[in-house]
């Protein structure tokens, strides 16, 4: 089902390309030995190189090259053995050199593919390229009435810019793309994916066109969006704005826009209005990066299992439904957690418990899986208790609640609270006999052919046993006794 905007003149299709800036996980910056930690004191992580002091020169951090290659491999992309750093020239106070060292004509990674799991099925989105570049510093505009303050801690931090093809067709796809890309880089350990701290940011190129039109129309670039939710909201707003512009007889202008999350709208950035001429040219302080295939192969050999492969394995080995598998692999920690739980035996049951019971608890308390109050070991034990009929699913929920609020080993909780399932035929038979004796009318109804009354009997037995009677046995024995 495609996402279309219904205009007055007809249906409009939205065309989206995303440029994602992902901070490379490295101790030091791309071209200097200063630290990259988040939240340090202003200008405390700035080397002479980062401050562009006269005569300072860049030297590439080898780990950043490895991380870029690793990411490229994770995106099933072509690794360019020869790539070149160029200077992108523009003036801004948080860009001390007056240029950003980036890659332009010859990036380190070429075309790749990201597969999205959409409700209507998988969607392959093309990756145009991945290149390395320096981050800029931070401008603080609200500290002084007349001045802007500059903190260069981020200046020179290594980024990967990952550019998609204009293959995305809805805000939902854009959101899925961001989530998938985030999952991949986190699996790879090449970016921590922390959008709140700006480790992962996104520029969205958005255009619209009447359905059926082949040519791309003028796009607007929405800069620096820092959450998946905002990416989707910004695109939705922008696409509708553009449809309105066209339908009012106007034209969309190519421009940079800013998403205002408070107002839920995009607006033109006046400061970026001026025509850009970045005057790219190869950085004469650096040499081309020439990699060997052997180097690339060595990195390839150390790649972890990535979300798509893991998802397939979950489906194949554990028999999980596609949706469940996709949910579990979205995050590596979740996938690992699930696998630990599944060790107990019933993987499908484990998946259910993680996706439904555990996620509900985590979502409610805004906790990450790493902060889960219930360890994977304990949840595994609980699932084990269900599978071996020690407790019923119903009772398990009570046990789980105790585990969440008070903690503890599920077996101990079951023991302490006497929640063990009643599987003793004699005990259940006795309860049924007593129930039939006390309720001859209902028993007669059953014998007269009203089998629906079984439900009432089961309910009564479960009540009498405080939920501990094995429901399957209760059913079987009831049929026998009543029939």
């Amino acid at each position, binding site marked *: 089902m495609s996402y279309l905007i219904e205009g007055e003149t007809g249906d409009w299709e939205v065309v989206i390309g995303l440029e994602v800036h992902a901070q490379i996980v490295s*101790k*030091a910056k791309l071209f200097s030995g200063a630290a990259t930690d988040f939240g340090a*004191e202003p200008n*405390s992580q700035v080397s002479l190189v980062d401050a562009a002091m006269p005569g300072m020169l860049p030297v590439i951090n*080898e780990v950043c090259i490895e991380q870029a290659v690793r990411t490229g491999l994770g995106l099933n992309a072509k690794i360019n053995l020869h790539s070149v750093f160029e200077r992108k020239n523009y003036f801004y*106070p948080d860009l001390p050199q007056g240029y950003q060292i980036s890659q332009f004509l010859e990036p380190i990674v070429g075309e790749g593919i990201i597969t999205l799991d959409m409700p209507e099925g998988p969607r392959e989105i093309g990756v145009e390229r991945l290149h390395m570049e320096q981050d800029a510093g931070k401008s603080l505009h609200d500290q002084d009435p*007349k001045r802007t*303050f500059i903190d260069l801690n981020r200046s020179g931090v290594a980024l990967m810019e990952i550019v998609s093809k204009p293959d995305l067709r809805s805000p939902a796809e854009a959101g899925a793309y961001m989530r998938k890309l985030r999952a991949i880089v986190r699996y790879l350990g090449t970016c921590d994916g922390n959008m709140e701290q700006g480790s992962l940011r996104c520029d969205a190129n958005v255009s619209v066109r009447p359905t059926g039109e082949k040519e791309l129309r003028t796009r607007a670039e929405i800069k620096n969006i820092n959450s998946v939710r905002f990416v989707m909201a910004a695109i939705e707003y922008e696409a509708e704005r553009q449809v309105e512009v066209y339908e009012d007889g106007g034209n969309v202008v190519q421009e940079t826009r800013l998403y205002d999350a408070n107002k839920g709208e995009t607006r033109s950035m006046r400061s970026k209005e001026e025509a850009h001429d970045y005057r790219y040219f190869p950085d004469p302080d650096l040499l081309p990066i020439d990699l060997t295939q052997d180097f690339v192969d060595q990195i390839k050999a150390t790649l972890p299992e990535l979300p798509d492969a893991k998802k397939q394995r979950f489906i194949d080995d554990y028999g999980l439904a596609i949706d469940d598998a996709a949910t579990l692999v979205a995050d590596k920690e979740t996938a690992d957690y699930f696998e630990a739980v599944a060790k107990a035996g019933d993987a499908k049951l484990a998946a259910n418990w993680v996706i439904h019971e555990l996620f509900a608890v985590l979502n409610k308390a805004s906790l990450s899986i790493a902060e889960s109050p219930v360890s994977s070991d304990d949840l595994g034990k609980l699932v084990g208790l269900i599978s071996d009929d020690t407790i019923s699913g119903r009772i398990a929920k009570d046990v789980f609640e105790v585990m969440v609020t008070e903690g503890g080993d599920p077996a101990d909780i079951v023991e302490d609270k006497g929640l063990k399932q009643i599987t003793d035929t004699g005990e259940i038979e006795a309860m049924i006999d007593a129930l039939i004796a006390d309720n001859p009318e209902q028993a007669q109804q059953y014998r007269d052919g009203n089998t629906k009354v079984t439900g009432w009997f089961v309910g009564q037995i479960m009540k009498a046993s405080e939920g501990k009677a094995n429901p399957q046995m209760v059913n079987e024995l009831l049929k026998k006794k009543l029939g």
Partner: protein
Amino acid sequence: MDKATVNNIAKLARIKVSDAETESLAGELTNIFDWIEQLNEVNTDNVEPMTSVVAMAMPSRVDEVNDGDDAERVLKNAPDRPADGSSFYAVPKVVE
């Protein structure tokens, strides 16, 4: 090269030039580029642009923090800083 081009380049390069200067620069730059035009005599169709003067692989550094951690060192030459002495550079307010 006309005055408009000179003004355009001056703007790109963030250099203030007076009207009089624009005039003389246009003349000088025209002369220089006329002289440079002789390069067009050379057919360079199948020539690769030079990428580096030295024939060697680019050296790299290990991923190790060994610099920074001294804000004063990078700030001490700054023409303007916040009055409270906090560790920032200061520039005229930027409107986004």
